[in-house]
């Protein structure tokens, strides 16, 4: 819960930088920071406690892999 609040704080800091600053370099930095907040929110929505990355290796079975992997769909939406 506090994780989502911190991500919203980063989003609003970036949005303040876009709207209220006059220098164009600061506006570009604000656009980048808004992008960071959106990307991290997507990946945080699909996280599972003590989850492993969704890449299957030789020494793991299929059932334990499906039961303990992180959701791969938000990562495919974020990839650039």
């Amino acid at each position: 819960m506090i994780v989502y609040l911190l991500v919203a704080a980063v989003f609003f800091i970036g949005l303040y930088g876009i709207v209220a600053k006059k220098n164009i370099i600061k506006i570009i930095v604000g656009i980048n920071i808004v992008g960071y907040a959106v990307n991290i929110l997507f990946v945080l929505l699909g996280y599972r406690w003590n989850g492993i990355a969704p890449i299957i290796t030789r020494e793991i079975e299929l059932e334990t892999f499906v039961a303990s992997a992180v959701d791969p769909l938000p990562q495919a939406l974020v990839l650039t």
Partner: protein
Amino acid sequence: MDKGMSEIVKGVAKMVVPFIMLFGISLILYGHISPGGGFSGGVVIAGGFVLLLLAFGREHAFRIFPEKFAEKLDSLGAVGFLSIAVLGFTGGHFFYNFLDKGRLFHLWSGGTMIFSNIMIGIKIGAALFVAIAMLSMARLIHTKEGVEYRRSGEDK
């Protein structure tokens, strides 16, 4: 980015750039087995080209890899990826995976995924290099009518 940097930087860049390219190609080719894929490998290859551009200056880097050739590589990557998708019509519908699926954990697995990775890697690498090369050549000139962009090296 007009002229290069000192001799130490040039010597180190000459030794390091082949390894960066090799790492990028390995990320592209083994994208369906280990973390990586087309986007990661393309960005790494573009990073290697940016190192060449920064260490050797603009004229020398464009003699090694001219930007007109990079624009053509960009279009080639896009057309190649679309042609793989259109060739799926031979299997039934658009973007059908029509090749043999191979065995798990081997290099030939996943059907058309390896060719799509190669095309996307070429496209992303060339596109990012074109963007950096164009931005390094532009100058913001204030003329009487206002603000204009010119390429440096051409007269007003």
